[in-house]
């Protein structure tokens, strides 16, 4: 059963990913991205990360991709880029070589270490079945989040502040001077 789901999800992911890099039109690329994101979400569920799956769908597909599309429309940069021609010489072959090498190395590492990944280091995740508590996953995440990781969590806020200020700085009209009113 898992296998079937996995295969389907993997297919979604990969097809979407390939779509992102081969579709000439940015909008199409964005849409294929959505496909990938959904596939990843499915795989999350398969990995008992229900909460993350939800967030994935909401944040990514919901917010980020929409943002992408929005900007595309805003700037009207929906001009298709011609992927047939490659202005920079040896860029594509290089990309292929690099990609191949990267993949080879990563897979080698993963396969070589397939049974060396320690198990049961933490308290375990699969608690819904044990405690019968349907939202144990969320609770667990929350405890972790506000436990030892609270510092990181607070850092996120700094990150968001930066993002906000950043957009303010960047989006001001060139001639306008002074702070935002």
């Amino acid at each position, binding site marked *: 059963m898992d296998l079937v789901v996995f295969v389907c999800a993997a297919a979604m992911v990969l097809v979407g990913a390939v779509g992102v*890099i081969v579709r000439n039109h940015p909008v199409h690329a964005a849409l294929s991205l959505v496909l990938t*994101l959904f596939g990843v979400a499915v795989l999350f569920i398969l990995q008992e*990360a229900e909460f993350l799956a939800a967030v994935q769908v909401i944040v990514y597909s919901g917010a980020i991709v929409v943002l992408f599309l929005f900007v595309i429309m805003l700037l009207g940069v929906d001009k298709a880029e011609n992927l047939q021609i490659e202005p920079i010489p040896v860029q594509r072959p290089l990309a292929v070589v690099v990609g191949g090498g990267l993949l080879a190395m*990563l897979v080698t590492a993963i396969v070589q270490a397939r049974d060396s990944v320690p198990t049961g280091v933490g308290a375990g995740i699969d608690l819904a079945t044990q405690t019968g508590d349907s939202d144990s996953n969320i609770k*667990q*995440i929350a405890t972790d989040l506000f436990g030892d990781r609270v510092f990181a969590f607070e850092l996120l806020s700094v990150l968001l502040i930066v993002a906000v200020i950043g957009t303010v700085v960047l989006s001001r009209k060139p001639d306008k001077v002074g702070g935002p009113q």
Partner: protein
Amino acid sequence: MTALLAALPVPTTTWYLVLAALLFTIGAVGVMVRRNPLVMFMCIELMLNAVNLSFVSLAKQLGDIGGQTTVLFVMVVAAAEVVVGLGIVVAVMRRRPNATADDLVELKG
């Protein structure tokens, strides 16, 4: 039928990791071959998703919730990145409409 399904092998962590590696590679290649900055961002998003996928599957394997929390962080980071990135693109595009990454080669040498 169910028996058949049950007989199928259960995908191990390694499967997920390999899939993530694939996804990551595709994203990386994308950054190298695409010229539209927006699409480049999307490719970076792909890479981040690959990372998330690995995290989640490793979290499962390790039985450690920390992996999932990390993914949460990464998602926020990704969002923030996109916001800033798009901001920059907007700023650029305002000056140079329809500019691709290859058009921005004033600085070199």
